[in-house]
């Protein structure tokens, strides 16, 4: 598959060290504009560390992260903060990622105050109301506080905040893992809609293979800090190549297999 367009994000040889070992080891990949790249892995695979390293929330030991031509790892201070406008993140724990002392309106106003300080109060209010509607919340919630909302609603607020500066790339770090299964679909569909309507590219990180399968164009599988397999979503799930990928897929308790009397399930030992 050729990449005629310039990549939005080009990561080369990224290495993040943690307590002497490599949490992320020589990782390279590209994301094209508007593409959804899924990243699957279990705990300890380094996928969350990778996301944080891209955002300079943890220091990288080696490598380059080229976002629209600029290496984010070499930026500092004001220049770095300016670039953050186009690279936003949605966190795993929706309530924890919202400042408990700020109202929803204040939380959503912050990106505007940072990146569009010239905006008047009325314009700000209008943009906030518009975004709240877009994520499926009533504009009146702007006066309430995070702890008054359920997990799914908090995640909608988190998504609204991330989308306020109209980023070109959205990192989603396990955005639905702490939500009820019956609610996960709501949030995934919301992300899907936003992606389609606004053309935002996404790096969708999850250990939940079914969700990744639903949303992604391409999928990377990560294990022990390395990318072990990358493929288009249909290929990966239909014909996985790497042994770890196959173990991962086999381990998901599938109701369709529960319906037919099962043989002994595949058990791979990955205990440390």
């Amino acid at each position, binding site marked *: 598959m050729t990449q005629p367009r310039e990549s939005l994000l080009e990561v080369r040889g990224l290495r993040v060290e943690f307590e002497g070992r490599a949490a992320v080891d020589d990782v390279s990949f590209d994301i094209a504009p508007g593409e959804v790249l899924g990243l699957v892995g279990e705990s300890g695979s380094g996928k969350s560390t990778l996301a*944080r390293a891209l955002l300079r929330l943890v220091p990288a030991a080696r490598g380059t992260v080229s976002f629209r031509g600029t290496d984010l790892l070499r930026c500092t201070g004001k220049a770095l*903060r300016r670039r*953050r406008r186009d690279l936003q993140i949605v*966190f795993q724990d929706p309530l*924890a*990622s919202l400042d408990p002392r700020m109202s929803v309106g204040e939380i959503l106003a*912050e990106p505007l105050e940072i990146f569009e300080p010239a905006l008047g109060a009325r314009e700000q209010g209008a943009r906030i109301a518009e975004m709240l509607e877009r994520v499926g919340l009533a504009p009146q919630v702007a006066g309430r*506080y*995070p702890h008054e909302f359920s997990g799914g609603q908090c995640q909608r607020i988190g998504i609204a*905040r991330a989308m306020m500066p109209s980023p070109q790339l959205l990192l989603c770090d396990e955005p639905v893992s702490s939500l009820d299964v019956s609610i996960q679909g709501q949030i995934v569909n919301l992300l899907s809609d936003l992606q389609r309507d606004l053309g935002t590219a996404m790096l969708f990180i999850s250990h939940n293979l079914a969700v990744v399968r639903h949303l992604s164009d391409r999928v990377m599988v990560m294990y022990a800090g390395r990318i072990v397999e990358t493929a288009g979503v249909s290929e990966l799930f239909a014909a996985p190549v790497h042994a770890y990928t196959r173990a991962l897929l086999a381990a998901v308790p599938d109701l369709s297999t529960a319906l037919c009397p099962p043989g002994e399930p595949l058990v791979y030992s990955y205990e440390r």
Partner: protein
Amino acid sequence: MSATLWGGAAARLRANSAARAAIWVLAILVTLALAAPALNPNSVETLDWSRVAYAPGWSHAHWFGTDRLGRDLFVRTFEGARTSMAVGLVAGAVSLSLGLGFGAVAGYLGGRTDYLMMRIIEILSGLPLVFFVIFLTVIIGRNSYVLYASVVAVGWLTMARIVRGQTLSIRRREFIEAAVAGGASPVRIIWKHVVPNVLGPVAVYATLMVPQIILFESFLSFLGLGTQEPHASLGTLIAEGAGEMEAAPWILLAPGIFLALLLVSLNVLGDGLRDAFDVREPG
């Protein structure tokens, strides 16, 4: 369940009967201290030679008696109270601001900055403060500014440590990470995210700091370094009274009781605030 977190804390505080009693006591003490001059015709400085070291009584409105120089103790006690409370409030506010700023910056920035700032605090903590105050008093002369500066010097160090500790505990929380990822500058993060989130515990310590400040001022005054004649503070009054304890015990009683009540109710209020803020936020 209340909408805001402060509202929730206020509700819990109201439910705490000890804290409510403390608030009442404080209100009464403050009102008395402010209203005393209006209540009693005697002035602070008038020396009533006819009633030197008079026991408390109704004649000439010497409700708390008089001291060795014939000055009315009722008025003097409450003037002392006003001085002490003013020092507590003003010096407390300044200590709080200094400590908050210093501690939040050190805690958030971390690394070399934090290291240097903490060493400064440690060095200052190690200095024998009383000798310093004596030194300053000798150089500058007896001056209420020296008093205030000394008292602030005591208060802000502890506050800075407390604020830094609180800041460290929230620095790694996800909403701070979210603010960084959102492009907020360190100044913005400290001002808009760190400070509002540490104010809860900080308010508690501030309430507990005020009695310490008042005590320290009383101590300095007791030593003769603080408030000077003819002005009174609770410390000077207690110093006077201590010398007259056998002959005229009432000279010590009024300021002593007032100081005790003030300190106890501030401490109880501080404890109540800590309990009120300690509960896990809903959600």
